[in-house]
């Protein structure tokens, strides 16, 4: 199958992510893109907005949990 616009979009986003010095993972970018892809033609924007918010909250929780766990390990 030739690459579609979907493949190109996620490819572009991941390329740009790789240039960032950040803890944000590729999985989060993919998930956010999947949400926007699924809802791009919908008029109601509350659903995708809420889904993105939840994804970021989960990512921040994951980051903080990982840091806390590391801190606990280091303290021990």
């Amino acid at each position, binding site marked *: 199958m030739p690459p579609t616009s979907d493949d190109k979009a996620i490819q572009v986003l991941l390329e740009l992510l790789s240039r960032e010095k*950040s803890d944000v993972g590729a999985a989060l970018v993919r998930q956010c893109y999947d949400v926007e892809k699924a809802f791009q*033609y919908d008029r109601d924007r509350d659903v995708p907005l809420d889904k993105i918010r939840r994804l970021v*909250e989960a990512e921040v929780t994951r980051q903080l949990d990982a840091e806390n766990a590391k801190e606990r390990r280091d303290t021990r």
Partner: protein
Amino acid sequence: MKLLDMEMYNFMPYRGKHKVTFPADPARNVMVVFGPNMRGKTSLLNAIRWCFYGEALDRQLNPIDLLKIVNIEAATEGDWEVSVFITFESNGHSYDLRRVAKLRELVDVPRRDDDFEPSLSMRRDGKVLLGDDIEHEINQIMPSQIARFFLFDAELLGQYEALLVDDSEQGQAIKEAIEQVLGVPALIKGRDEIRTLLKKAQAVQAKENKHVEGMASQAEQYARLQAEIDSLSVDVTALKGKDAHLRTEIAGLDDILASTEAAQKAQAQLDGLLAEHKRVSERVTALKEEQLGVLQGAWKDLLQPRLQQRLNELIKERDGSQASIQERGSLVARIDQLKKLLSQSRCSVCGQDIAKARREEFGAQLGKLEGELTAVSADMAKLGEASAEISRISRIRGVGASGALKRIETEQSRSAVEHTRLEGEIGTLRRQVAGHDTAEIARQRTRRDQLMQNLGRIQEDMKRSEKEKDDKVGKQNQLSRLMSKAPTARTQRSAREVEVYGVLEKIFAGGVDTLRDRLREAVAAKATEAFLKLTTEKTYKGLAINDSYGLTIVDRQERPVSVRSAGAEQIVALSLIDGLNRTARKSGPIVMDTPLGRLDPKHRANVLAYVPTMAEQVILLAHEGEINREEDLEPLASRIGAIYDIERISATESRLVREKGGK
């Protein structure tokens, strides 16, 4: 997505129930529906549109009222119900979609669309979907925004030329639709939504930092900036409102001016011709005056031979008089000498007496010389007269009337022809502008120019306010980053959220332009592949794409081919659609109305040969004038899954008949 069946009830010319079964075999994926004009080919396209999107479109792409969708014969008998039921498959699921419009209770005869009660139902794999889920599901399969690339009237493909015109509104609308089919909105909406969430997270962060030691002043500064940004946002919104209002007014004036375009052109032409007519008339008058002048002096030309003769005589006379006048001095001297001799009795030289005979001789000589002197005096008088007459005659010069009159006549005749031509053209143009208030048109044109100036000013203001706002947002982001870097921020949830949203916003925002560039390249490559198969001109190298996805043919020397025929426009537009469908995530059945109307036989053959590869299902709605059932379909026979004929029952009623045979 693959269409399976469609059942219409009272839909436009199809009274009662009519069923169409679409070809399901991928090897026989082409369906042709033959029908004369006005019999219901476009209605089939509209039945699909209406079922999916609740909208049927006329040839100008304006929505058709529900009142006109219901079959008129059925309505006359009181049956106002209309419905379309489609079964299809997509992404491994089977669907049925039914749209129905019935009269509302207590309405006997509908007068407007609100008198109908519309309903839409959908089942996926047998399970009923409700309300917004149906719209979302349709948007996943075949959103209305991109339907123009699947369900289209090939006669309107010329509109894609607007993509080559800078700042054209139609071009802008098509560009947006193209980006929709290519999925660019996923990144644009993602960027905007993440930006919204980032702002909220920053606001929370700033609020929390008000109570954190050492961060209060930054938090306050953040809040101040926010107030300023909010105020600028209000300004921008108001300016956008004015901008939209002005654009609407300009579009209205453009419509009026477009409808009077021919009259305006004729008026401009007429003004030019009237000026030319005035110039020619002035020239005609000047020539007439010149002609009169020449005629007044023409008698001089008639007298010229006799005058010349007289002049010659006078010159001769004058020359003779002049010669004798030159002798006068010597005559006077000799007379004086003779008079002196005669006054003396002796010669003053030799002292001898002068003989009587000698004196008589001198007296005779003196008498002769005095006679000659009198004659010379008369010559002097004659010389004066001759010179005066020569001068008078010389003033009576010939005017060359013959040559001048000939030249004037030639010019007069040329001017008369020009005059007649101008009067004829002026008459034609006057008839063209008659009935149009050209002064009103001029007023509207001036009004439009003024509105355009206002629009320019508003856009400048908008740009300024937006820039100011962006600067403040930039400062806010800077502050937010500073707050996030503070030691206390590592444990602060809001700071973490700001950081994550910030990264996401940056990559989604940056991704939009990069994705656009890559998609343009991909579309141009795919469209070129299609174009080279569809065109009959072998000197063409391919298609070049502009920022708006407008395609230009380029020849082997990489030169753009600027002039193209209606047929070439159609081939380029079909190539663009094919390029988009091959690049886009979504693909569906192509339903093409009047697909070959503008094409010559060779292009028609190329398109028909290419059609089966354009989509999983291709449905052609054609009349027998554009596709010859025997000759044109013969090479395509192995790919045809179904042929339908639309048969006339009455002026307002048609029926569909499936051709029997192996298809």
